[in-house]
């Protein structure tokens, strides 16, 4: 299993663990809603599962298992794929932190943090797609 696949898969497990912990907070929100407005964590919870867990897991396995790009560069461009890993994770963490804080105290800083989070995640996704596209082939 290539190094980057291990990074993708292990990181996805970390997000799964965090998502499950947030899920516990959300499930018990009636018990502590007076202390913490945990409902604002819901969009982050969904994206921890769908982007952090599922998408990173899929990306890691696809990078490993899909047909080779060439003998010299079996996984395609290493630069693109590392960029995808870093941008997606940076963007997702910014969202998980920034979105609840933006809900609590709306100011320009948290608003722009969400914009940068959106941009980084989008760039990460597109970088991965560009790299994988060439490897989706009949032979």
């Amino acid at each position, binding site marked *: 299993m290539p190094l980057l696949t291990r990074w993708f898969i292990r990181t996805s497990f970390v997000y799964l663990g965090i998502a499950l912990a947030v899920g516990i907070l959300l499930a018990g929100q009636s018990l502590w809603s007076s202390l913490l407005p945990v409902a604002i964590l819901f969009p982050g919870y969904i994206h921890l599962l*769908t982007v952090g867990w*599922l998408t990173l897991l*899929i990306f890691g396995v696809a990078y490993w298992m*899909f*047909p080779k790009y060439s003998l010299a560069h079996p996984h395609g461009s290493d630069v693109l794929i590392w960029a995808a890993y870093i941008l997606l994770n940076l963007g997702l963490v910014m*969202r998980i932190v*920034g*979105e609840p804080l*933006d809900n609590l105290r709306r100011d320009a800083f*948290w*608003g*722009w*943090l*969400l*914009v940068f*989070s*959106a*941009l980084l*995640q*989008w760039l990460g*996704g*597109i970088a991965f*797609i560009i790299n*994988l*596209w060439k490897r*989706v*082939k*009949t*032979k």
Partner: protein
Amino acid sequence: MPRLSVWFIRASLVYLAVGFTFGALMLANKGLAFNLHLDHLLPVHMEFLLVGWMMQLALGVAYWILPRYVKGLPRGNETMAWLSLIFLNTGILMMTMNTVFNVTWFMLIGRVFEAVSALTFLLVAWRRVRPSS
């Protein structure tokens, strides 16, 4: 990788790109509130990423990688598998039309197409889920 899997997986990557684009626009809009109507993209964002990207990718990879039949067509009835691809994408597009034109019938028909696609694929692949020979 068989040609049908190439179509399934490339289509899934297109939905991933568009779904991510809609998601990024909505998240940025949450931060800066530059367009009041962008939240209407949420159902399409979810449809493209859950059905268009994840479900379609899973079907494409399953068609490629499940154990093949020893006798007859190695991956089962290819025509039915192609129909599954067509039904699934018709269903997703009908669901999208529902968001654009707000006609409930599109959503109903879209979901029927998606269910028929899954059923068609199930008929093709069911017996391929077995111990490797």
